[in-house]
């Protein structure tokens, strides 16, 4: 079979649909962002996200099918994100995907969103095969894991508190930079000195590959309070650059240490924060010395998208893992190997 899958993704604030061939070749990748809708609230409002997904989903699916030049008859399956994410938002995608699969008598595949981010590297680098190390770093997750094979994972460490992207959002808010925080901090940090302020690089006791980002966030808050008490002007660009440097350094060093410990010479970075240019340049600088190859998807595949969901769907379908009509959305869905 050509392995044509329609992917649907609505786990947070992007409504997305895509058609992918053979798990690797993107025929269409349509993403409708809700950023402007949530901006006045300084973060994603779950009920509004769910409402917007339901309003947009059918035209987005239609656009994905049309842009791919694919008819319903030609599809081999439907893949949909079933978690983790905002449960009400996830439910829109899951519901629509199930109805389409039921109506067209197509196999349905439920996909873990984090797994999708990992597979975005298969879309970006068609030659890439497991094993490799993956760093999933976004607004909701900071996970370091070994990809042993398609559907076989070993978790090495994850964040104990805030996700890296979440720390970016929170610091952006206290700096008055607005939402979404990641791109705002990255832009402002370009004008700042990353060594101006020594923010902490947290280590998690007895867990060499785990992360913690609430400490650096608190350190930024304390620093700002001290400046205000003393009546000092806050150098926003320096704070942003120094905070970003602290987060990026922890991500890069811990990832490369994990690669060395596992004897792996290839790392795939993915998720929204993978688009951060400071993260990419530090990886580039440090990985060369360590003899490790670091891969990223292009920015459009770092964002939440449905092509990566269709990619996972293809491999799950090949392995016979289909879902039944009672498939449900799950807010906290750990990344697990296929049973």
């Amino acid at each position, binding site marked *: 079979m050509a392995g044509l899958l329609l992917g649907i993704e609505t786990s947070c604030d992007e409504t997305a649909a895509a058609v992918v061939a053979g798990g690797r070749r993107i025929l269409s990748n349509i993403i409708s962002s809700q950023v402007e809708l949530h901006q*006045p*609230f300084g973060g994603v*409002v779950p*009920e*509004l996200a*769910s*409402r917007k997904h*339901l*309003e*947009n*989903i*059918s*035209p987005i*699916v*239609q656009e994905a099918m049309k842009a791919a030049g694919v008819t*319903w008859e030609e599809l081999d399956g439907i893949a949909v994100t079933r978690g983790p994410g905002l449960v*009400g938002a996830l*439910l*829109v995608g*899951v*519901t*629509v*995907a*199930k*109805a*389409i699969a*039921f*109506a*067209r008598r197509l196999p349905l595949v439920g996909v873990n969103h984090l797994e999708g981010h990992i597979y975005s590297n298969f879309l970006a680098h068609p030659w890439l095969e497991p094993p490799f190390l993956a760093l999933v770093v976004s607004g909701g997750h900071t996970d370091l894991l070994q990809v042993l094979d398609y559907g076989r994972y070993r978790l090495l460490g994850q964040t104990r508190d805030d996700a890296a992207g979440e720390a970016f959002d929170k610091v952006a808010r206290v700096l008055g930079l607005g939402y979404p925080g990641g791109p705002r901090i990255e832009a402002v940090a370009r004008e700042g000195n990353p060594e101006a302020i020594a923010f902490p690089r947290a280590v998690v006791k007895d867990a060499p590959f785990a992360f913690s980002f609430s400490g650096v966030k608190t350190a930024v808050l304390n620093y700002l309070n001290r400046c205000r008490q003393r009546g000092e002007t806050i150098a926003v660009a320096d704070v942003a650059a120094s905070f970003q440097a602290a987060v990026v350094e922890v991500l890069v060093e811990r990832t490369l240490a994990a690669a060395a410990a596992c004897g792996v010479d290839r790392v795939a970075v993915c998720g929204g924060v993978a688009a951060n240019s400071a993260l990419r340049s530090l990886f580039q600088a440090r990985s060369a010395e360590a003899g490790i190859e670091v891969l990223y998807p292009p920015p459009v595949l770092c964002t939440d998208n449905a092509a990566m969901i269709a990619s996972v769907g293809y491999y799950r379908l090949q392995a016979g893992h289909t879902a039944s*009509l*009672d*498939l*449900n*959305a799950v807010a906290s869905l750990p990344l697990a190997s296929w049973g």
Partner: protein
Amino acid sequence: MLILAVDTATTVASVALVEGERLVAEEVLNIPQRTHSERLLPVMARVLAGAGVEIEEVDGIAVSAGPGSFTGLRIGLGTGKGLAQALDKPLVTVPTLDALAYNYFFPGALVCPLLDAKQGYIYTALYRGEEAGLERLTDYLALTPAELTGLLAGREEPVIFSGDAIGLCGEAVAKTGARAFLVPAASRLPRASSVAFLGRRALEENPGGVPLTVEPLYVRKSAAEINLEKKESDSGGGNG
């Protein structure tokens, strides 16, 4: 014309198939322990199989559009949208309160469907039986039970109460006195067959159905929007 209808506006999941004036098959599941997401399509599959109808034979999809549980409405309408798009068949939406009132058409009598809107509110609308059918007298409302009592004050017609929130509106029912008629418990549940019959009427008027961007009748805004508006009006303005 074969119409497939779904209602998941409350804790009840219902799917029905009607052909013309004939109810072909219907299932009503009133088991709040399982989510609509898990049970709606299995219910639909059973209804179609029971009727010996293939999904491709359906001529139109009708969905109970609210007001009701926000998540329930999205599961019903999301399912309707997916079916309509994949089958290339028209979709129509039917207000949930219209469907609840539909079975109680008696000329001269009022119908007052009541749905639990949670947090101390109910959803309702008032209907009157006219020669031609039920006429809706009010908007679709989110009210407190006390406000419902006010809405019914001064009315002299008999009032037929239905829906899952009758128990929350004891004062309004009591004040209606001998003119109050309570629908028996089993008949208070939303029925997809009513959605189907009203949907068929909507499709006759509008054969193409509604655009697939159609939204449920939420009636109430999200808590975040209400808070933001309150903050903006407290701070003396805002920009909209």
